[in-house]
């Protein structure tokens, strides 16, 4: 039975690694292999969720590498495995036969496998392993079309940003060790001693916030849109961004123990939910809109972790996974067919491809929090917990929910508009569209949208209680009826208003809209504040290294010779004064040492005599 959890992570990781390394030879069987592996993984995940295996082997001295499926993990492994399967299924239609499908499928499997490792890990070490591999794989997936430099740059940004945050986990691991948690087991982390506890918490918080694209790291998610749609679907739903939320949910006891972790996290989540929601509203690109909405929705999960609502957060995570994957797949279907993801160009897209349109709309309605769909209840579950903590949090969350309704309705409104005459002129901006949605994509869309709907059942009190028991942590509070009604009314009102408003001008200054549209220009800020200074520092140091340090250090022993020659030749590189001085000095000393050798004997005599006199005086007077 213990082997189950090994298999669970080994199947996707192993298959993925092999597929990714086969090169072009593996392109043909890749989709089939991928789907098979994903299906097996799903089966294993279900089995594991039922049997709850736990294994552990030694990793480092005193540190075990453990994998286990407990309640929280059980929910997540199934979610991850399921979403992966559907996304892979969908992707068979997204890629043409001549594209490197083996690499894609392999990387996707590794990506999912890494997420599985992350969610089953029992210790910080293994968790970090999965965490980092996921980040690296995301780089490879976002930069999948490597011939186009802007995509690779986007991948770089995404990877570096998340890795910057990942440093938090390294810090946390060290702090845990120093704080007396020699095993690095997640369950023991709350017992760390002060002040390491603070460092540990800070590390975890930074890592999770970064991975989940919360403020202020949210900008990488925008760049992550450069990858294929299936990648976005997976990355935004059950993996990667979800990992941050998962980590916070998992380490909720730590946040609680630290004293300051909970409010910080809760407010970060709430703020992200609201602000990124506004960002989403300001987008004119469908995928960008969805990306911003991801940040915002994950914000609710983070809020839940901060507020102590682990169960609510988990529900939100699962429901959002289904919803968001459906939305991205729908967007991907249109992208494949029409070659665009710009909102204005997508007018009428739903009418042209009705199945996609319907599934998209269902998912968008879920996102908007329309009852009785899943996110309505999960969000309220989160907000209910928040309300117990602070009214401000609740209000912010509610506002964020309203914003969510606005941007969801906006997207749905656009795709259902009648197709304009010159619709085709806006298409094919990304690549040449196929004008049809691949047959393979349809079942995936339907299932995922269906799941988004059905998961509303989580809100039914018995189910909710069962889930809470399953997860077994956090507070047990369910939203009261008035809360549910209030949020439903607000969502519906906002959505209707948005639908009615259409694309008429918004009474918001253009600058603000543009600012929001560019994700508040955080990337530019990071560029200005971090990247540029680093590069400047690097160049300065390199110049210092080449011109000063190297030369100065080297010219002491190696002396004149080559440097002098360099000076003679007119200096290929600007040799500064110090160097010249040293070179001349060495040369001068050499010449000076040879000067006594005049060849004139009488001078030898005089020098020897004088030197001996000096030596004699020296010996007489120095004791």
């Amino acid at each position, binding site marked *: 039975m213990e082997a189950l959890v090994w298999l669970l992570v080994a199947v996707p990781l192993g298959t993925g690694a092999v597929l990714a390394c086969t090169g072009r030879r593996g392109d043909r069987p890749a989709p089939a292999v991928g789907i098979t592996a994903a299906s097996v993984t799903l089966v294993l995940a279900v089995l594991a969720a039922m049997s709850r295996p736990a294994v552990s082997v030694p990793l480092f001295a005193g540190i075990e590498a453990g994998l286990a499926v407990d309640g929280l993990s059980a929910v997540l492994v199934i979610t991850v495995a399921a979403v992966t399967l559907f996304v892979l299924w969908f992707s068979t239609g997204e890629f043409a036969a001549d594209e490197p499908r083996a690499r894609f499928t392999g990387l996707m499997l590794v990506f999912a496998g890494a997420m599985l490792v992350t969610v089953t890990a029992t210790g910080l070490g293994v968790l970090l392993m999965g965490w980092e591999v996921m980040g690296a794989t995301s780089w490879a997936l976002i930069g999948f079309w490597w011939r186009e430099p802007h995509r690779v740059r986007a991948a770089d940004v995404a990877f570096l940003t998340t890795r910057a945050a990942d440093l938090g986990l390294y810090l946390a691991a060290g702090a845990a060790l120093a704080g007396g948690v020699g095993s690095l087991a997640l369950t023991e982390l709350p017992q760390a001693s002060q002040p390491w506890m603070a460092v540990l918490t800070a590390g975890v918080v930074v890592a999770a916030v970064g991975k989940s694209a919360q403020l202020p790291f949210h900008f990488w998610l925008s760049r992550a849109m450069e990858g294929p749609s299936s990648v976005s679907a997976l990355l935004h739903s059950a993996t990667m961004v979800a990992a941050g939320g998962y980590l916070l949910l998992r380490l909720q006891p730590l946040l609680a123990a630290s004293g300051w972790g909970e409010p910080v996290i809760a407010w970060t989540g709430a703020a992200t939910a609201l602000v990124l929601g506004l960002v989403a509203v300001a987008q004119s690109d469908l995928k960008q809109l969805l990306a911003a909405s991801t940040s915002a929705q994950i914000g609710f999960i983070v809020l839940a972790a901060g507020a102590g609502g682990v169960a609510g957060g988990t529900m939100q995570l699962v429901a959002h996974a289904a919803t968001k994957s459906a939305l991205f797949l729908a967007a991907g279907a249109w992208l494949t067919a029409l070659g665009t993801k710009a909102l204005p160009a997508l007018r009428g897209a739903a009418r042209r491809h009705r199945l996609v349109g319907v599934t998209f709309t269902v998912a968008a309605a879920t996102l908007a929090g329309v009852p009785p769909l899943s996110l309505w209840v999960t969000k309220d579950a989160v907000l209910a917990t928040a309300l117990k903590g602070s009214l401000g949090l609740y209000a912010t969350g509610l506002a964020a929910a309203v914003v969510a309704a606005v941007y969801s309705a906006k997207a749905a409104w656009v795709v259902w508009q009648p197709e304009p005459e010159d619709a085709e002129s806006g298409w094919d901006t990304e690549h040449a569209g196929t004008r049809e949605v691949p047959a393979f994509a349809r079942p995936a869309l339907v299932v995922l949208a269906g799941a988004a709907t059905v998961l509303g059942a989580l809100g039914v009190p018995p189910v909710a209680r069962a889930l809470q028991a399953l997860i077994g942590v956090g507070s047990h509070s369910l939203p009261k009826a008035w809360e549910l009604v209030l949020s439903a009314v607000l969502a519906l009102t906002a959505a209707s208003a948005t639908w009615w408003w259409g694309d008429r001008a918004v009474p918001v200054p253009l600058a603000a809209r543009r600012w929001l549209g560019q994700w508040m220009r955080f990337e530019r800020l990071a560029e200005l504040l971090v990247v540029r200074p680093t590069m400047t520092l690097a160049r300065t140091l390199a110049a210092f290294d080449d011109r000063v340090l190297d030369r100065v250090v080297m010219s002491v022993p190696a002396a004149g010779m080559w440097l002098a020659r360099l000076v003679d030749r007119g200096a290929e590189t600007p040799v500064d004064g110090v160097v010249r001085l040293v070179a001349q000095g060495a040369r001068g000393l050499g010449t000076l040492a040879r*000067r006594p*050798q005049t060849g004139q004997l*009488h001078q030898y*005599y*005089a020098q020897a005599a004088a030197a001996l006199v000096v030596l004699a005086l020296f010996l007489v007077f120095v004791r």
Partner: protein
Amino acid sequence: MSLELFLVIGAGLLAIGLFGALTQQSVVMLMMGLELMLNGVIVAAAAFWYYVAPGTADGQVLIVVVITAMAVEMAMGFAVVTAIFRARDVDMTDMAADLKE
């Protein structure tokens, strides 16, 4: 007081000889300077023997050694001068200065 007298004479001869050795261009004259220096050494050696350690013959042997050294140096000097005179037709040190930096 008397030891000092002899020593000063010795020192004087040594200094004169050194001056000669340093200033003379001609090798033979230069050798004369060296001889004079040894001359001073003889005075000093004899004085030391008499005033400091007359009990042993070391001082006397020292003078013998000095005299022998004088002879040896002279003989070698003349031989070397002859050799270089034959080879280059010079007997002055200034003109034998090809070996240098």
